[in-house]
């Protein structure tokens, strides 16, 4: 499908006058399409190979390359059944981890979006002392790599806060499903700097007369936020939401540390990393498992690509 990428002549440009220039133009455009095709192939073939392999029987995956499929097509859904639903611990048990991924991701998107919206509204439209300094401070926090925060935040959860032997905050001691709370908490903290920055960018561009008029009419800040600002910045919320969704769903480091590695709370990325380490040659499970984890963000991404691109161009890349 990519083999047809050919440049069309621009309608706005004057037609090349001399024969030489026409030849030269066609030559370079031929090179250009060749480059485009090669890059597009390089960027799609690896994923396609994995996708095709995930439907091939185990012995075939392990003995022949996926390209032999075209001469000897055999397909099966067995890999997916086994990796998702088998209860033996050597297989994926992916269904459990898939549910964990969902349970981790949904609140980890909702909370930062809400908190960042409130904060960005205050920083754009309220008048109070120190506003600019707070904004600069939050902006600057984007610099802090989350690696800086991992060890102390983990001990905050497991040991609480003690100052000179005095317990200020007790340990959280979260067990079982409550462990998800600390993952939500960590993801929310780490998302706030970029979220506030992004939403502030959009919100401060709104016309001030609109908000001023509502205030003169006696609207409270709650009402202005709900009725006027929110509908206007909805696309921005969508792009930050998608960023955060992809970030949390695809995250490995935060999950490894705050969710642990068991089927009780670990997401799919952690499980896949484990399988790649200990069962690196069980390709029938790795291919199917990887594809299960890929399909959800891919669907979200494809359906909302417009918002994603807009956020990207507004500087919403998380460091």
């Amino acid at each position, binding site marked *: 499908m990519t083999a047809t990428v050919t440049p069309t002549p621009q309608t706005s440009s004057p037609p090349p006058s001399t024969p030489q220039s026409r030849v030269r133009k066609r030559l370079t455009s031929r090179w250009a399409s060749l480059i485009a095709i090669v890059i597009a192939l390089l960027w799609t073939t690896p994923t396609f190979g994995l996708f095709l392999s995930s439907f091939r029987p185990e012995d075939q995956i392990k*003995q022949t390359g996926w390209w032999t499929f075209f001469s000897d097509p055999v397909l099966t859904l067995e890999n997916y059944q086994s990796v998702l639903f088998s209860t033996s611990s050597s297989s994926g048990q992916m269904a459990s981890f898939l549910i964990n991924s969902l349970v981790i991701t949904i609140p980890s998107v909702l909370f930062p979006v809400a908190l960042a919206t409130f904060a960005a509204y205050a920083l754009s439209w309220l008048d109070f002392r120190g506003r600019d300094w707070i904004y600069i401070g939050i902006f600057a926090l984007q610099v802090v790599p989350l690696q800086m925060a991992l060890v102390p935040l983990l001990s905050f959860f497991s040991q609480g806060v003690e100052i000179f032997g005095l317990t200020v905050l007790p340990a959280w001691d979260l067990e079982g499903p409550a462990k998800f709370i600390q993952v939500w908490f960590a993801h929310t903290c780490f998302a706030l700097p970029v979220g506030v920055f992004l939403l502030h960018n959009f919100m401060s561009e709104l016309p001030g007369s609109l908000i001023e008029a509502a205030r003169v009419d006696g609207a409270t800040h709650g009402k202005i936020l709900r009725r006027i600002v929110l509908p206007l910045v909805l696309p921005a919320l969508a792009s930050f939401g998608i960023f955060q969704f992809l970030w949390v769903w695809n995250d490995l480091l935060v999950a490894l540390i705050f969710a642990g590695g068991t089927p009780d709370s670990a997401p799919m990325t952690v499980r896949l990393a484990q399988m790649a380490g200990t069962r690196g040659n069980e390709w029938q499970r790795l291919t199917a498992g990887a594809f299960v984890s890929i399909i959800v963000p891919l669907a979200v991404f494809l359906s909302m690509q417009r918002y994603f691109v807009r956020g990207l161009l507004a500087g919403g890349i998380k460091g």
Partner: protein
Amino acid sequence: MDLNFDFAAEQPKLVQLLIGVVAFFAFIGLMLLLLDRAPMRQRARLHALILLGPALILLGIGLIIPGIRTTLLSFMNGDSSTWVGFENYSWMFTQPEALTVLRNTLIWVLVVPLLVTAIGLVYAVVVDNTRFESLAKSLVFLPMAISFVGAGIIWRFVYAYRPEEADQIGLLNQIVVFFGGTPQQWLLEPPVNTLFLIVVMVWIQAGFATVVLSAAIKGIPSEIVEAARLDGASPIQMFFRVTIPAIRPAVIVVVVTQCIGTLKLFDIVRTMTGGQFDTSVIANEMYNQSFRYGETGKGSALAVFLFVLVIPIVIYQIRNLRQQREAR
């Protein structure tokens, strides 16, 4: 095969999810209630406190205090019981295993932004204004939705190795064999194995560069393009004399973002080699020292070093942004 997957066992998690979502709506309701109750004045200190409070508390607990504590921990020993001065830092810059990590990180930071920007730029130019532009861009952009872990598995499959007499299952070795070579274990031979890991990162990020640079190319004023074309500029001349100077700010954005992202890279190395065979990078080593070997001091020192490396890049970016804004 036993397929008795027990959905009942998953119920507590879904209950937890429900609790989380209910808590979310309760939080929103409470915030709006407080906002409506607070008296309206010109100086809105009370409203600001309500709106900013939760975010500032979380930033304090989640980033500011931990950042300070990590800095302190980097001057302490493995279990944080005594002060050791700069010992962890001198370990980082003198011990061979730590120096390998720093060398690898340097290679990553030099190679990834360069390749990502170059490939993204060339691709954005060659597909610009073609009939299949949006499809072509989507194809390259798609890997951005894939997790680094997923991408790691995709590429491990490409690099898969079988002994010479057997059929190859990895695409790369199949190509090597097709051209009469012998199959290689690509990820085991330092230092080239780092390059094979870098390929994965470039594969994921090139789409980002394509989208940003393509948007910049579309923003070049058409009068400039027309003028150059009327003057008889060849496509190559157009690329170097017109396109590149016009989109320089976007190129800088891409390079800077890639530098920062690459410095913090963890997942690819962890999934594909686990940092073995001399492929570890700072973020991976930091994880190993802190969470596997119990060497919190060394791990914290690595994290602080990462922070120090990022600062100049961000300052450069901020200055750059300000210049752009003044120029407007």
